[in-house]
């Protein structure tokens, strides 16, 4: 991660701020819809492998 590519100090400052903004979103709690989505996907998959599934793809 901490690769040096001959950055100027200015570049480093920009990257530092990029990471702050980016990580502020990364650190947000994950909305419930995604846990539900993964449940649905697993559920659908189980249906397919068990019985005959209706998949569109």
């Amino acid at each position, binding site marked *: *991660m*901490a*690769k040096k590519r001959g950055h100027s*100090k*200015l*570049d*480093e*400052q*920009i*990257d*530092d*701020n*990029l*990471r*702050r*903004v*980016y*990580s*502020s*979103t*990364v*650190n*947000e709690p*994950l*909305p419930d*819809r*995604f*846990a539900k*989505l*993964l449940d649905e*996907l*697993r559920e659908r998959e189980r249906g397919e492998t068990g019985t005959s599934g209706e998949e569109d*793809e």
Partner: protein
Amino acid sequence: MTEAPDPKKELIEHLPAMRAFAMSLTRNSAAADDLVQDAVVKAWSNFDKFEPGTNLRAWLFTILRNTYYSLYRKRRREVEDPDGTMAGKLSEKPAHDGHLAMNDFREAFAQLSDEQREVLILVGAEGFSYEDAAEMCGCAVGTIKSRTNRARKRLAELMHLEDELEMTDASTMAVINGKPAA
């Protein structure tokens, strides 16, 4: 019993980063979550094409960006900036501690092109190599390098960074290095 990690189980660990990447592409939290959802569904039905042992995050990010460029970029023109992220004007110079005001930085970032925002997140924030970023974006390594440089330069211009840094460089860097963000 092989212990190859199941990418379907690992997927959830990458969702926060996917949201952040989607947010920087769409600049709109509702659209970002829709984009992540679309990318997850697409990834799920293509996991048989994922090569175990390769970089899952890079694979997921590639799907996400391709989804963005094929679907969302067009759609976005119809929705005029509902979060108001682009609307603000740049006012302040960097705070004297060397950290830019977060909002000013967001606003400057939002004014970059899609390709510039993308490359800064991949290379600058996520720390992907130029080579990985090039593969993810489907372009040459040289293109990624020059795009990154131009994006950084543009961002510095928008933030009025250059002159400020020349004067306070040493003390600025000391503060940045000594003080973790928020």
